[in-house]
């Protein structure tokens, strides 16, 4: 535990010091929320999900913020590798599993904090929290997304040599995961061929879980959401740990 805490502590110190990165990663979901939310609010009508598109969009943007921050935190291992710091941890008498779990805990914490910032900003533009347990459920789903996708980032970073592939991963893996997740639109009204694809996206269940917590309404049963995103998180942590073991320096 002490080693996991040590590595988590380092992530936190770096996070608090990187003001520009904090602001940078709030900006995108916030702009989406403002532009799409206010832009489409009057023209979009969501049958059965209340009239308000902004209310619908907020959980999606919270999930987006957690997703991007966590994948990015995981992939940062490549920087540690390139700048040599990874050697320092790998040559210490600690297990790789501890290092990986510490890194995951750090990335997930950062991601959840970023998500909470969006959540707090959302309160200013009209989000009203339904119930305290609902709010806690939403945070629970944010934690699961954070852990799962940090581990996903670590898995990717462990199999990458340098940052060259980063843009590719962002465009062809992370953005589709976000786009297909129902963060922006209700999955129930999709054309027949697209529906099943969104159901394969683990983030869909995360978004729906947060939506259930915040608005009390969701298109997928929250228990199923919890089971799927929970299973994804466990599986990703195992895969991430396995691939991280094989990193050669």
């Amino acid at each position, binding site marked *: 535990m002490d*080693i996991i805490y040590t590595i988590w*502590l380092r992530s936190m110190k*770096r996070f608090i*010091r990187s003001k520009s990165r904090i602001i940078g990663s709030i900006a995108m979901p916030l702009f989406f929320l403002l532009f799409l939310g206010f832009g489409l609010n009057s023209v979009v009508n969501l049958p059965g999900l209340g009239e308000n598109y902004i209310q619908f969009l907020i959980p999606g943007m919270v999930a987006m913020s957690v997703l991007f921050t966590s994948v990015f935190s995981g992939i940062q291992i490549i920087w540690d590798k390139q700048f040599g710091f990874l050697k*320092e*941890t790998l*040559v*210490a*008498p600690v297990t790789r599993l501890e290092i990986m779990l510490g890194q995951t805990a750090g990335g997930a914490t950062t991601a959840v904090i970023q998500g909470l910032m969006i959540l707090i900003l959302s309160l200013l533009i009209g989000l009203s929290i339904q119930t305290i347990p609902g709010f806690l459920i939403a945070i629970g789903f944010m934690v699961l997304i954070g852990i799962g996708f940090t581990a996903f980032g670590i898995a990717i970073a462990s199999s990458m040599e340098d940052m060259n592939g980063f843009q590719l991963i962002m465009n062809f893996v992370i953005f589709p995961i976000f786009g297909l997740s129902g963060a922006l639109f209700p999955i129930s009204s999709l054309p027949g061929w697209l529906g099943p694809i969104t159901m394969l996206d683990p983030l869909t269940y995360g978004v729906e879980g947060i939506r259930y917590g915040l608005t009390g309404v969701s298109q997928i049963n929250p228990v199923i959401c919890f089971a799927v995103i929970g299973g994804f998180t466990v599986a990703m942590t195992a895969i991430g740990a396995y691939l991280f073991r094989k990193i050669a320096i």
Partner: protein
Amino acid sequence: MTIAIHVENLTRRFNDLVAVDHISFEIAQGEIFGLLGPNGAGKTTTLSMLATMLKPSEGTAMVNGIDVERDEDGVRRSIGIVFQDQSLDEELTAWENMDFHGRLYRIPSDIRNLRIDELLKLVELFDRKDDIVKTFSGGMRRRLEIARGLLHHPSVLFLDEPTLGLDPQTRNHLWQYIATLSREKGITIILTTHYMEEADRLCNRVAIIDHGKIIALDTPGNLKDGIGGDVITIKSPETAKIVETLKEPWINRMDTHEGEVVISLRNAEQHLSTIVTLIVARQIPISSISIHKPTLEDVFLSFTGKTIREQEASTTEIMRQQMKKMGRH
């Protein structure tokens, strides 16, 4: 004499490239031991195997009596490493970097804090302890890394090219630190270097390594004595003729090399005029002539027929070909 490191037939292959080729040596506790050789000779690979970062293909290595393959964590706890490339977190302060290391090695917090202060004072970074490492110069970073490597009180310290890329003044300063460390704390130090002067000034014993093999191992003094006295270097367009001319019994050894004749002999000053007379008598032109006390560079030249710099060039070429074979570029 306690043995700190025992290496027997240690070998490491990367596909068909044999980076380290059946080397054996022993290092006594408290010794400063140097691995001297050109880039790509296998120094860092040897170090990586001793530090459990790389598995040997063959052979055994014991560090503080612990087998590097059987008990990685045991070895890791008893060694400190300063890598060739920087391995600090630039966004943390000097103190935080030390603290992180101390926690990784599970040093209790009261002892940890005391040692961090003590070591930062030793490397004269205590005043800067709360500054972000990004603002540090190359020499300061090296000193911080050495301090960090000592935090968990290792009995063996590995230094991989400790002064690479540093200016001469900082280099001198670091040499003093390293010598002091070994003297005052009795730590066994193994360093790799391709600086002759570094090996000469710091090390009790030096292993000269080339193409993965140890080609000579002794004290710097003995290695230089082995050459047979002083060195006279004559530069001339007709080196072959000079060798032919100088068949004198007092010459211990003669090598031609890149338009130069390198002669090893005792009391070079006394024989210089004779040498010049003999050459001039046969009307062989001399471009320049010099006498110097032998250096480890001469030792390397006498064993390999090349200077370290030439060897580096050719080794790089071999590695490049090897990379091509492996399908990289």
